[in-house]
């Protein structure tokens, strides 16, 4: 008789830590490096305690040299290691963009398939902590522009726990974007929760009237919006993309073919963003299934401001999502 798995309460932060712990235990080639991942315990306390457990050889504090340590991660991956490189926030990753784009994403191709780069880069992303315009952006959509890397956006405790191992086993570079507001997210997962898919989107809430497509930090808000829409008799289906590259359009298209309407919720900017990409693909592949124009709720086109009310106004929020969905449905308000 099958036994139901024991559920344990955990947080997103603990789930990421547990995933790293497991990887470090399972595979000698895995090591973690980044700014303040060791003695400090990680900027967001994700790696707290790992230094004590695994020692300074495998939990390596680095100088503030994003380009050098991301590049060193690439080199180490080329020479047989499975590094996890933590970049404090997505804005800082721009200092390493040369290494990520010009090396990590290209070496396999430039070398005609000879050298692959099994590297994992984790970084915090997103707004909501009043950190203003240099620590709050959502650039994962940008990274999804780049062929040669994989872009993951775990939005749940389960995904935070389960995405790291398959990412480490992927022969190519994987970027994991952790929305910093999610670190305190609580949830229950099976005690023995294991790897999850890093290829597929998932339907987080079923509905028949409109498909809400989102990922990462906007998932919770979108689910909340779906609940409110239910009160108007609107059944919203919520899709968590989970990976921005590859983009699992199969799941998205199946849903839109059912609901005939789509709204994308993206904390990234609208212009040229991942929402634009999804819209285009819907138009390309599901035009004759659309009963209303595709709509988007994205961040406003401003650097994220400091003041609380301004920051809140800059990024997608539940009322905006609800209003946009109602508009797609043809409600007058």
């Amino acid at each position: 008789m099958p036994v139901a798995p024991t559920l344990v309460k955990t947080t997103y932060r603990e789930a990421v830590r547990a995933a790293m712990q497991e990887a470090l235990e399972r595979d000698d080639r895995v090591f973690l490096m980044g700014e303040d991942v060791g003695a400090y315990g990680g900027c967001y306390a994700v790696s707290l305690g790992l230094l004590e457990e695994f020692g300074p050889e495998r939990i390596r504090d680095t100088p503030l040299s994003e380009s050098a340590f991301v590049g060193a991660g690439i080199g180490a991956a080329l020479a047989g290691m499975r590094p996890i490189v933590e970049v404090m926030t997505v804005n800082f990753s721009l200092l390493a963009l040369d290494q990520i784009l010009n090396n990590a994403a290209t070496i396999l191709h430039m070398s005609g398939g000879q050298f692959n780069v099994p590297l994992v880069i984790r970084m915090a992303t997103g707004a909501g902590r009043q950190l203003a315009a240099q620590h709050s952006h959502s650039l994962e959509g940008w990274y999804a522009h780049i062929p040669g890397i994989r872009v993951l956006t775990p939005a749940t405790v389960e995904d935070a726990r389960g995405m790291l191992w398959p990412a480490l086993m992927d022969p190519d570079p994987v970027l994991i974007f952790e929305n910093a507001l999610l670190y305190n997210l609580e949830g229950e997962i099976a005690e023995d929760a294991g790897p999850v898919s890093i290829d597929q989107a998932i339907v987080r809430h079923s509905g028949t009237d409109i498909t809400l497509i989102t990922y990462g930090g906007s998932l919770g808000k979108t689910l909340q919006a779906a609940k409110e829409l239910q009160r108007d008799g609107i059944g919203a289906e919520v899709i968590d993309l989970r990976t921005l590259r590859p983009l699992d359009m199969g799941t998205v298209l199946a849903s839109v073919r059912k609901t005939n309407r789509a709204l994308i919720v993206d904390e990234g900017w609208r212009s040229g963003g991942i929402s634009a990409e999804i819209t285009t693909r819907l138009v390309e592949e599901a035009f004759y299934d659309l009963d209303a124009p595709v709509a988007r709720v994205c961040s406003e086109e401003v650097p994220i401001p400091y003041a609380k009310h301004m920051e809140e106004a800059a990024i997608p929020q539940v009322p905006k999502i609800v209003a946009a969905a109602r508009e797609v449905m043809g409600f007058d308000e």
Partner: protein
Amino acid sequence: MNDFVMPSLGADMDDGRLLEWYVKPGDAVKRGDIVALVDTDKAAIEIEIFEDGVVSELLVPEGEKVPVGTPLARIGGSGEGAAGGMAATLPETPPAVAPETVIETVGKPVPPEVPVTQAVSSVHATPAARRHAQERGVELSDVSGTGRHGTVTKADVEAVAKELEATLPAEPEPQPKPSRKRISPLARRLVKELGLDLATIEGTGPGGTVTKADLERAAVPAVPKPEPKPAATRVEPVKAESSPREQKQAAMRRAIGAAMAKSKREIPHYYLSNRIDVSRSLSWLEEENLERPITNRLVPAVLLLKATALAIREVPEMNGFWLDGGFKPSEDIHLGMGISLRGGGLIAPAIHNADQKDLDELMADLRDLVKRSRSGGLKSSEMTDATVTVTNMGDLGVDLVYGVIYPPQVALIGFGKITDQPWVENGMIGARPILTVTLAADHRASDGHRGGIFLTTIAKVLQDPEAL
């Protein structure tokens, strides 16, 4: 004998100008020697030769610009054979797409046509006149010149142009293009698949767009088409210096104030409330809605309205007016719907004969009323002929409504929010969605006993939603 050619120093170099020869015929050259100076888009660059030999002939003189690959000089072999043939074989660049795709020119090249110019040259015209003639579409040969020596001037051209205009029939006014019917891509596909005639389908989506829902309506003629919308009723202007909107609001507040004051002053209210388990209704509704397209989706309020109307049939003392010192029961059941307006204020237009309508009709009426109330398109009869009022404040999170009767009506039914609450049934406790319904009734027209029966009837009807 090999050719020394204009080298390519980059993909962005198309040609070069030979500035200076460093060698002359008869000179011996060897691999790596600088033999000429060539000007490029970047600057002058010294170019080298990649073979040994003797310059036998210079083919391009100094100062001349030639494309990359053009032979510049002929180099005689120095006796050791043609090892340096590479420089002559030019340019076999990789194929852009596939080697097979070669575009060939078929047939003989066509010689350029020689334009006939004599007609033009026989007319003397000023340059301005020539241009004007072209602009006005006038043949210069049709114009007799009045200028010096019979030269055609701009005025001459204009005169002829006017003459031509007068004789030509006026161009018909361009008809306004019929505006393209807006239709969603999905609806467009379905029209084709279902073999429908797009012209007969009315679009009710945003901006009059035809959507899937419109097609479903068109495909099922049993559903009556909504009546054409009536013109907005005029509101009596109120004299004041404030804006029309403020005036309107002020007038409304005064009207509400007067009616409510009268109610509180004159009507002896009594109040009853009843908690109702609506789990059956809600689960029935959920299943029912699964079968329905979104536009025909039902909301819980519709069930409450229908239940109220049916209960009124059982207890007619709730329905009618207190007029001239006596109760005048109403045959018809017109449910006044309390609707709050966005700018503030409240109105209670009626859904007529609610007891005789099915849920779909009630839903349509409800949507329609809310929409028109807020956009200002109600008929005056709707505003005045309600026989009883229902107010649903659950959306606002209100648990319990203590109603004020709208005179001359004699009852007001209030619905609160549906919330999960502990509920005991057959000695078992469980969580159920619970709704509190209240009645405010006029003691002159009925008493508490009848009021109690009325509320219980609503509760009973809601337990059997299929029958609604």
